[in-house]
Structure formats: structure tokens, C-alpha cells
């Protein structure tokens, strides 16, 4: 009898405790609230634009092989180094164009088509898709040297052993980076894919709009004072990537094609060696298999086929509609509405600006003079020691990150730049660390009661 009473009491006490503690509702179920085209694109305005969207989407899903001759892998130019084999491999959740999926494709990528790579310890089948960077170069003794900043992407895999790789490209001329050493010395950081829904709207927000929003943020009572990253060539505000290091979707697409999949293109014209490798001998000739650029304008065809993959990747992302939030799930409409007010009241919306208006667009009506509900100011902010990754990109230092746009957050699986958590509460708490601009706002969150916190979490998962 006593035995039965104790577990029951334990269960009841846990239940009571649970009743008063807020919880992350988790990934919002139901249909994907994203992945479709902008409404004017769906209406094929201007005529043929829907074809461009569909073609871009198809190319976005194409798997690349080295030669383009492997069955079912029609894309051309993979490697010699790569992180994955298609755009959609990383941008998949909850629909094509999104963020990291529940099952990490990088595990299978390691040995696809005969490749002989070792899966690094930080890549797991249920973990996030990850890009690895070494903040510092190693010294001759195998230790990271803080006087030699690196920060470039260390591609996980090589094409060695694949059925379409020439035998001369083998481990005597190309090897995987020293991931075990990097993990042992703490000289490694990760980035996960950013979702691309609504990115055409982001691209079409004028600098003046961003500066006005910046100006309106000043004089606040929570200690938030961001700045912008800038494009090195024309000095305008850059906005894509975790540190807002990329100016446009075309640059974003071209760089990713080159860095993540190893496909040279018209924007990034050479095969990419690793950081360090690029200052010594470069990539071995035996592994530079294809003529460059591997992706290019196709002169021997007509219409859409003329365009390069890079241009069409960018066009697909540009024409994707922004995510549609739920008004009722999770927690019901009252809770979500309350959470939205709380989000603004405690200061989250200062950086996570609810909406910004785009400029007139020559692409399609839906991109022009539209309200982009991105929940970001597109500024970079100091996020402190807790989130610092010691990687500088453009004007962003080691702990400065672009305010992550929160649209579509309800259906994302992994949070923060490195995908360290699936739990929204953990992600919020991580905003509070030494040197972070978000300390005060995170403390305002701490001052809320459990019901209020739950409303806030419900609101975020409704996005």
C-alpha cells in the first residue's frame, strides 16, 4: 500500500510542479506554414515568373555528383570538398527552403557513392546539419594559436573514393580536416543553415528603412545598441548569414554552392581549398576534376535553361513567401496574442523588430512595398561570451550576430547559430551572458510569471 502511495504522491507533485512551470511547446505540428511562392508569383505575375520559381525549386533539390553522371544525381561539380550534396539537404524543415531537418543527411553524405569519409564526432543522425569552422589556425605543436585567426569553413568531407572521382584524387593528396584535434582543443565552432523563407522581402528592404528603425531604437532603457555589417564593395548594409555578412541572395547562393557543395560558379570561380591550404599549394590538381566554373550560364540552350544554378537558387529563395504564423496553435489565440504583447513589452521586439516595409520591386508585386514580418532589425549585436564564436566576418566581431529573424520559428527544430539546443527556453536564456546586449531584456523575461512566460513561448512557436 505504502509502495503504491509514494509513486502516486511523486507523480502528483511532479504534475503540480509541471502545472506551474512553463515549457517549450515544441515544433508546431500540422501543415508547413512555409515553402510556397509569394502570392503574385503563384498568380504568375509577371507571366512566366512561376516557371522560374518552380525551376529554381527543382534545382534547389537536385543532388550533385562530381561528374553529373551518377544515376539520380544530375547536378554537376560536387567537391573536391563538401558539407552536403544538395541545397535541400540543409534547407528542408518544414519545407524546401527551410532549416536543418530532423534527420541529418550529413551522416549518409560521408559515404555516398563510395566516398570514404569519417563522420566527425559532432555530426549525428539526430543532430543539426552543421558547418564547422576553426576560429584559429593550429601552431606546429597542434595547439590553436590565438594570434592567427582563421574562421573559414572546414568542409567535412572529400570526394575521395567516390565512383566518379578519378583514382589520382586520393588520401595522399587530400584529407579531411583535423576535426578530432579541433574538438580536443576547443578550436571549433558550428553554424547551422538559416531558413530562406521570405528572403526576397529581406533583400528588398532599403538601407534607409533599416537606418530609421535603428534610429528609433536609440534612447532605449534596456541597453541595446546594435550596428550594421556592410558589404565591402559598395558599403551598403549586408543582411544574409548569421553575421549579416552577405549582401544579396545571389552572393549567398554562390558562396554556399562553392563552400558547402564545392561547386565553382560565376560568383566564386575557383574550387575552394581549406583555410591554410589556400595559402600554400592550393588544391591538388588530381582533385580539381572539372573545368571551371562548374556552374555557369548555359549558352547552348534557351529560356530558363540558360540560367545558371546559382541564379536560379537565388531566384527560388527570393520568390519564397514569408512563413504564415498560426493564430491558434499552440495555446490558443488569447495566449498567443498575450505572448505577442509580452514580447514587445519586455523589449525583445527592440532587436527582433516585428516588421519592416520593403521598397517597390521590379521582380513581382508581392515583393514591393510589402510588410515583411521578419522579427529582426538585421543589425548585428553583441551577444556576449555565452554565444561568442570568435569568428569575425566583415564588420562583425566574435560575439556579434545578426538578430536572427524569427519568422517560421514555430516549425524550426534547432536553435541558435550552432544548433546547440532544440529547446526554446534554453535559447532565450542563452541571451544572458557577459558582454551581451540582451542581458536586461532576458532579465525582464525572468521577471515574468510562469503563465506570462508560457504565453510568450506559445507566441514564438506560433510564428
Amino acid at each position: 500500500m505504502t509502495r503504491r502511495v509514494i509513486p502516486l504522491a511523486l507523480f502528483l507533485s511532479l504534475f503540480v510542479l509541471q502545472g506551474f512551470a512553463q515549457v517549450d511547446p515544441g515544433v508546431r505540428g500540422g501543415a508547413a506554414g512555409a515553402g510556397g511562392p509569394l502570392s503574385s508569383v503563384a498568380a504568375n505575375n509577371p507571366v512566366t515568373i512561376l516557371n522560374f520559381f518552380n525551376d529554381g525549386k527543382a534545382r534547389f533539390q537536385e543532388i550533385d555528383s562530381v561528374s553529373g553522371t551518377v544515376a539520380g544525381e544530375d547536378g554537376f561539380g560536387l567537391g573536391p570538398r563538401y558539407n552536403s550534396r544538395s541545397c535541400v539537404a540543409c534547407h528542408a524543415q518544414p519545407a524546401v527552403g527551410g532549416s536543418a531537418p530532423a534527420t541529418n543527411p550529413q551522416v549518409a553524405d560521408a559515404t555516398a557513392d563510395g566516398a570514404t569519409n569519417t563522420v566527425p564526432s559532432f555530426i549525428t543522425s539526430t543532430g543539426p546539419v552543421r558547418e564547422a569552422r576553426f576560429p584559429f589556425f593550429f601552431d606546429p605543436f597542434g595547439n590553436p594559436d590565438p594570434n592567427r585567426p582563421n574562421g573559414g569553413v572546414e568542409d567535412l568531407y572529400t570526394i575521395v573514393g567516390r565512383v566518379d572521382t578519378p583514382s589520382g584524387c586520393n588520401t595522399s593528396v587530400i584529407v579531411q580536416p583535423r576535426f578530432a584535434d579541433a574538438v580536443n582543443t576547443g578550436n571549433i565552432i558550428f553554424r547551422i543553415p538559416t531558413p530562406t523563407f521570405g528572403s526576397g522581402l529581406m533583400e528588398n528592404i532599403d538601407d534607409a528603412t533599416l537606418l530609421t528603425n535603428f534610429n528609433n531604437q536609440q534612447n532605449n532603457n534596456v541597453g541595446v545598441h546594435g550596428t550594421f555589417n556592410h558589404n565591402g564593395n559598395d558599403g551598403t548594409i549586408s543582411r544574409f548569414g548569421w553575421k549579416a555578412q552577405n549582401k544579396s541572395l545571389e552572393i549567398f547562393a554562390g558562396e554556399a554552392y562553392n563552400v558547402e557543395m564545392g561547386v565553382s560558379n560565376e560568383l566564386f570561380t575557383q574550387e575552394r581549398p581549406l583555410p591554410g591550404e589556400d595559402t600554400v599549394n592550393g588544391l591538388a590538381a588530381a582533385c580539381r576534376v572539372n573545368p571551371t566554373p562548374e556552374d555557369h550560364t548555359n549558352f547552348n540552350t534557351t529560356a530558363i535553361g540558360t540560367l545558371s544554378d546559382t541564379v536560379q537558387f537565388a531566384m527560388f529563395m527570393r520568390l519564397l513567401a514569408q512563413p504564415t504564423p498560426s493564430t491558434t496553435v499552440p495555446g490558443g489565440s488569447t495566449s498567443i496574442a498575450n505572448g505577442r504583447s509580452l514580447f514587445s513589452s519586455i523589449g525583445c521586439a527592440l532587436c527582433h523588430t516585428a516588421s519592416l516595409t520593403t521598397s517597390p520591386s521590379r521582380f513581382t508585386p508581392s515583393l514591393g512595398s510589402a510588410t515583411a514580418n521578419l522579427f529582426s532589425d538585421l543589425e548585428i549585436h553583441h551577444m556576449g561570451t555565452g554565444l561568442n564564436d570568435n569568428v569575425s566576418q566583415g564588420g562583425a566581431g566574435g560575439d556579434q550576430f545578426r538578430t536572427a529573424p524569427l519568422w517560421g520559428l514555430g516549425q524550426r527544430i534547432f536553435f541558435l547559430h550552432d544548433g546547440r539546443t532544440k529547446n526554446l527556453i534554453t535559447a532565450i536564456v542563452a541571451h544572458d551572458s557577459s558582454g551581451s546586449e540582451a542581458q536586461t531584456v532576458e532579465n525582464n523575461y525572468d521577471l515574468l510569471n510562469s503563465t506570462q512566460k508560457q504565453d510568450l513561448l506559445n507566441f514564438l512557436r506560433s510564428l
Partner: protein
Amino acid sequence: MFRRTTQTILFLCILPIARAQDAPVRKLPTDVILVKGAVPSASDSATPLPEGGTVVRDVYRNDYFGLSYPLPSGWFEKYKGPPPSDSGAYSLTLLRPGPDYKGASRGTVLITAQDMFFGPMSGHSAKETIERTKERLQADYRVEHEPSQVTVANHIFTRFDYNSPVAQLHWYVLATEVRCHTIRFVFTSPDPALLESLIKEMDAMKLASNVDTAPVCVPDYAQGANVTYKVDPVFGDQKYNAIPVRLIIGKMGEVEHVHVISAFPAQARSITDALLQWRFKPYVRDGQPVAVETGMLFGAVTRPKPYVTASSKPSSN
């Protein structure tokens, strides 16, 4: 010959590996920002800086502002704030209840400073910045008490109270001017009684008077005919960042101190090296040359026009 070369290369390749096996693994420190981006720096380590405040024995001390603020009992500074912004804004400290705090209510005290030489509201008084806060208060908030002047610790402050009905949080803000900066104390809590008691405790605070020993604040002094000799800084790659710089000019017109508020290290070095060579006309007040504190803005200035009100006027000394 070829054999020997190959052997030598092999030896050189193996050597680091062998040494690496003997040497202990050196892990990168965690919780340290090693690649900092734009940060503050100064031409000397003796002159107090606005961002140089620390909590020592339950008192927040800031020598630049002559500020000595006893922490509420059981409260602490858990983390340091971010570096100053490129618009001259500082989060001096954020205080919160610590593990030993016995009170029933919780809250925070944020102390900030805004350099009056820079930013969209440059040249505006503490009163004007508070009025601006009130003007721009979002619909989420309700005004509790209109901005009004109060005396705390023998200093005139502008106080403004507001709250958020949905968050059930109250913000009581007190702002004043000290040495070319507006300083704010922002008290936040669900409990107004706690906030009132925290404000009452502010009377134990010490805050320097503007007129004592600090240099005279003169906006835009480092330009035009006031400059008698200058050396231009040499910049490397363009980073498009605004670089606010605070200068202290001695009685004889020499540069005594350069405080680069936000810049990449190479930019800061170049600006500091150049400015230390500048010479100015001595600033004369009441017939006597006096030291001057002023600001200069280098780098890109891509900010909208400053906020202007009908009552706005340039700050005077």
C-alpha cells in the same frame, strides 16, 4: 639527392607531430571573446574611462563619472555589459538579486550612459532624452508619472515612471547629466514598492559635480580654426563603421588623452597615433585657459539626421 630531400621533408613533417604528442594539449579558453571586432581603447591606462566602472565590495564605482553607488543588499553584478556602441552608448552595469537575496520581490537596476557628443540625440539634455522616451512610448506601456525633476544624492534628475499592464512590470527611470554624458538609472520590477525603496537608497550614492575637476565639455571643439596642427590618421581597409573618439585637450592646447570609443584595433592605433600629435588653441574661460573634453567622429557616418525638437538647443558648458 631526391631521396635526401624527400627524407628531409618527411622528417620536417613528422617533427611537429612527434612534438605535439609530447606537449600537453592547450585548450582554448571558454567564456573569453578573443576576436573582438570594434572595441574601445585609450591612449593611456591612467585616465579613467566611462566604461571602466567595477563593483568592489558591494559598491559600483566609476571614477570617470565620480560615481559611487552602493548595491542594494543581496544584489550583485552577474555579468559585465557589452562594449560601448558606435553611437557612444554604454551599459555601465546591470545589477540583480544574487543567491543570498532575501527580499520577496525581484527586479533589476541598469545604469547606462550616453555620450552627448554622439548619437541621434547628441547635444540633448537628460530631460530632453527622457521626454523623447515618453513621446515614443509604445502602446504596450502606460505612463505612471510624467517626467519631472527630482533631487537625488544632491543631484538634479529627471524622473519618469511607466509600466506595462500585460507584463505587469514597472520601469522607473532617473536621468541626469555628468561630464558630457547623460546617465540613466533604470529600475525594473513587478513591485513598485521595491522600486521606490531602491530609489530611496540612491541617496547613499555619490556622483561628481560637473564643475569640480573635470575638463569643460565643448562639443565640436576639435575643428576649424581651433586646430593649429594636425596629422591625418592613415586607414587601411574601409569597414564602414562609425568611430566616435573622445579627446581631452590640455590647457596649453596639447592632446592629453584619446579615448577611441568603438573601433577595430588598427583603426584605433592609427587615430590615436595621429591625434596625439594634434595641437589646438587653448580654450579660455573667465580669462583662464582650461582643459577641454570634446568628441570627434571618424569613419563612416551613415546615420539619419539627429532628433530635433522645438525646445532642442545645443548643450552649453
